[in-house]
């Protein structure tokens, strides 16, 4: 019963605005599920560097409670033993659950809207151990919050977002706090502004960045474990009605991380598959 309650609480809390279905694959975006909509995501997310590779695969689900509030959960499984910095933009091995609230939603004309979405969630260490500097660390749960704002239209998309994750301490160990940010530009060429019963394509340029604090081990900060990096790369989103496939890659444009600790992280990539199930149920019936 306790486990069930914990799971329900986890569902009721918020997850970071992890990229999925309608938006970019790396950066933060504003779309949320419509009321009654169930979305399921499955993806492969990889990071490669001179000290190894880390690949995560996972399944995420979302449910639209209202037109502007979505509950989400993401359960990844990670492979590889790359000694890579703490990361929140790309999914790692942590389980997350939470909710997103689109608190600003201004519809300006046909196909255009300006909106802002805030997310809050819990991040729980998964059953797999971390690698690199984080291996052997006692792990505790954390809290993650994100905020994204943007503009969507039939031709162009612009999103800006940021997030902060803070972990609790466990046995005098603590994973680093992470500040992350992103800027995304998307474009759909005129020839692809077609009917909804045809494949809908759009391309994104995604800029993401992160700053992680130092890793605390046995009560002291491990030297040279704080990092800052900025990544840039393209991604493409293809949607047919309620199925979406998205892929992208990023390379570093700025990196301030100890090579002795983390090596040189060179590439990030992501492939995501989404299935959206919309609700045909209508709350009011017959006589209006």
């Amino acid at each position, binding site marked *: 019963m306790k486990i069930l309650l914990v799971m329900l609480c986890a569902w009721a809390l918020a997850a970071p605005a992890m990229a999925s279905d309608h938006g970019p694959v790396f950066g933060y975006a504003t779309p949320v599920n419509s009321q009654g909509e169930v979305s399921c995501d499955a993806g492969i997310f990889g990071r490669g560097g001179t000290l190894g590779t880390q690949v995560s695969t996972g399944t995420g689900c979302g449910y639209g409670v209202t037109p502007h509030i979505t509950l989400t959960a993401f359960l990844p499984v990670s492979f590889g033993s790359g000694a890579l910095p703490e990361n929140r933009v790309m999914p790692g091995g942590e389980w997350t659950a939470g909710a997103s609230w689109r608190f600003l939603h201004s519809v300006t004309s046909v196909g255009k809207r300006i909106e802002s979405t805030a997310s809050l969630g819990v991040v729980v260490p998964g059953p797999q151990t971390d690698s690199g500097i984080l291996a052997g660390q006692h792990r505790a749960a954390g809290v993650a919050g994100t905020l994204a704002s943007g503009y969507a239209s039939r031709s162009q998309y612009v999103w800006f977002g940021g997030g902060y994750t803070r972990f609790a301490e466990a046995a005098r160990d603590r994973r680093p706090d992470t500040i992350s940010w992103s800027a995304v530009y998307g474009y759909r060429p005129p020839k692809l502004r077609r*009917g909804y019963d045809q494949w809908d394509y759009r391309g994104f340029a995604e800029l993401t960045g992160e700053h992680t604090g130092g890793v605390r081990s046995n009560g002291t900060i491990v030297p040279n474990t704080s990092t800052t990096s900025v990544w840039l790369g393209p991604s493409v989103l293809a949607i047919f009605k309620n199925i979406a496939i998205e892929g992208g890659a990023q390379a570093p444009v700025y990196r301030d991380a100890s090579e002795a600790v983390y090596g040189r992280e060179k590439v990030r990539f992501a492939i995501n598959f989404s299935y959206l199930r919309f609700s045909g149920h209508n709350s009011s019936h017959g006589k209006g």
Partner: protein
Amino acid sequence: MIMKRLLAVAAFALFGVVAQAQYAQVNLTVFGMDCAPCAHAIHVSMKGIQGVNTVDVDLNTGLVTIKLTPDNKASMRQFNDAVEKNGFTHKDADIIVRGKLTGTAAAPVLEVTGTTDRFALVSVAAGSDVASLLGKTVTVAGVLPQAPKGKVADTLKVKSITEAR
């Protein structure tokens, strides 16, 4: 027993006559849809309304065209709800609707058959003989202006009004 059956048949026949098409077609302009899932969501929601026959969504114009079956009891509120639950905004709606004309010749009111929808008719063309249609079942083509979220406009701008066959 035979009498009861006859009454049941008569009642069924009478109900069949009353339950003619009310909303025949609704062309609703929707703001905010930018992509295929938006349109698909609207399509699924509209098809979930009992009596909706076909739904067509044009993403570039934002126009949602809904055609209904003759025996539907759908209300305008349901169409608006289907838009709102997907996070979009409904604007003007071009409708073809059937109902009983009540009120007065100066202030005619359309009571949509089978629903509680009721619209004050405005902008009726000067040539229309509204007085002769009072108390009759009419078919009206007109425009419902945008209403606030959760509401349905209470006036219908008439394009044409004819006695229903």
